[in-house]
């Protein structure tokens, strides 16, 4: 029973319940760094860490937390974990920290973390909340990583900073700039939802 539940939570967060393309939540803070794959991955790892741990903490406190100040407490918990991520980056990955600039701090306002804390951790035990945090974090991250790969490849002709495409490739500057992210994400959502609808039709007929 328990194993079944864990698996269900995990798969739902990756697929049908994926926060990015179903709810379009939380793209604010991370979309901006998706023009470079490396930054995206670092941000994603930070995000998964914060989501999982804040879920656990909220879940622990869920029975003693006064509901009136619930949001404040959640924000405080999330902010503290983000500070930890920020400090660790500054100390051990100063190069990346410099490039991410203020975006690490913006993990705090990422709607997904707060959303999972509200929707899941408040009504589930810590263990399951941890799984949910990891899964929604990964579900969110892989979408962004795909976007980052597309944007970096087309915009700079490289992946992870290594030049893949030769000199014949003309860089699409637009992919590096802001509109590129909007279009890439829209097309990604289009494809995924299109496949989902096709499957549903296939099942119902």
């Amino acid at each position, binding site marked *: 029973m328990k194993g079944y539940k864990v698996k269900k939570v995990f798969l739902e967060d990756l697929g049908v319940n994926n926060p990015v393309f179903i709810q379009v939540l939380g793209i604010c803070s991370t979309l901006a760094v998706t023009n470079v794959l490396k930054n995206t991955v670092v941000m994603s790892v930070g995000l998964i860490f914060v989501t999982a741990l804040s879920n656990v903490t909220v879940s622990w406190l869920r029975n003693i937390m006064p509901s009136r100040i619930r949001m404040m407490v959640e924000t405080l918990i999330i902010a503290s974990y983000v*500070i930890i991520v920020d400090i660790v980056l500054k100390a051990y990955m100063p190069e990346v920290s410099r490039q991410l600039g*203020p975006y690490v701090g913006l993990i705090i306002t*990422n709607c997904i973390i707060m959303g999972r804390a509200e929707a899941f951790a408040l009504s589930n035990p810590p263990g399951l909340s941890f799984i949910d945090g990891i899964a929604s974090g990964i579900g969110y991250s892989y979408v962004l990583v795909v976007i980052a790969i597309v944007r970096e490849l087309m915009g700079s002709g490289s992946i992870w900073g290594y030049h893949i495409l030769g000199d014949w490739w003309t860089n699409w500057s637009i992919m590096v700039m802001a*509109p590129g992210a909007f279009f890439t994400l829209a097309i990604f959502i289009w494809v*995924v939802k299109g496949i989902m609808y096709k499957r549903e039709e296939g099942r119902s007929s």
Partner: protein
Amino acid sequence: MSEGLAFYAIFFAAIFTNNILLTNYLGMCSFLAVSREVDTSMGLGWAVVFVMTATSALNWLAYHYILVPFDLTYLRFVVFIVIIAAFVQIVEMIIERVSDKLYIALGIFLPLITVNCAILGVSLFMVIREYTFINSIFFGLGSGIGWMVAIIAMAGIRQKMARSRVPRALVGAGIALIIAGIMALAFMGFSGMIKIT
């Protein structure tokens, strides 16, 4: 502080060439959720302008007069978010007492604002870019207005498109993102008009 970064340049850049929503994607959540009607968007827009300007000033003071002297800058995320949340709460209470009309117009949007990434984003950018107090206020004001302009334009376009036939898989978020992309392209056309040197 170099004399080059004039407050009016920051102000206009924040509205047009470097719109916080269209170039930094901050405040997308409420952007996509609320921007279906022009009236609602306008209400939320004004609330954001007000809160953004005030909190960027408050956070600047807190950062430079409390956090920096006591070497507590690593706590800035917590301090900023608490100041924003507290400010929003206080404003909500004052508006409720003072004016019913204003409360109906702005009050319902205020709770949404605490979790608006753009508000915190402005405070964090202003610190990392080492703006002066005046520059920070104008940066907050400009970013707020820029956000409002974007969300109202978006709402207008979406209202017009209510009866358009959009591919099924693009309905909702998908088409909103494409519109945002085209708007971002249009706003890029402003670059070159304002020069920060």
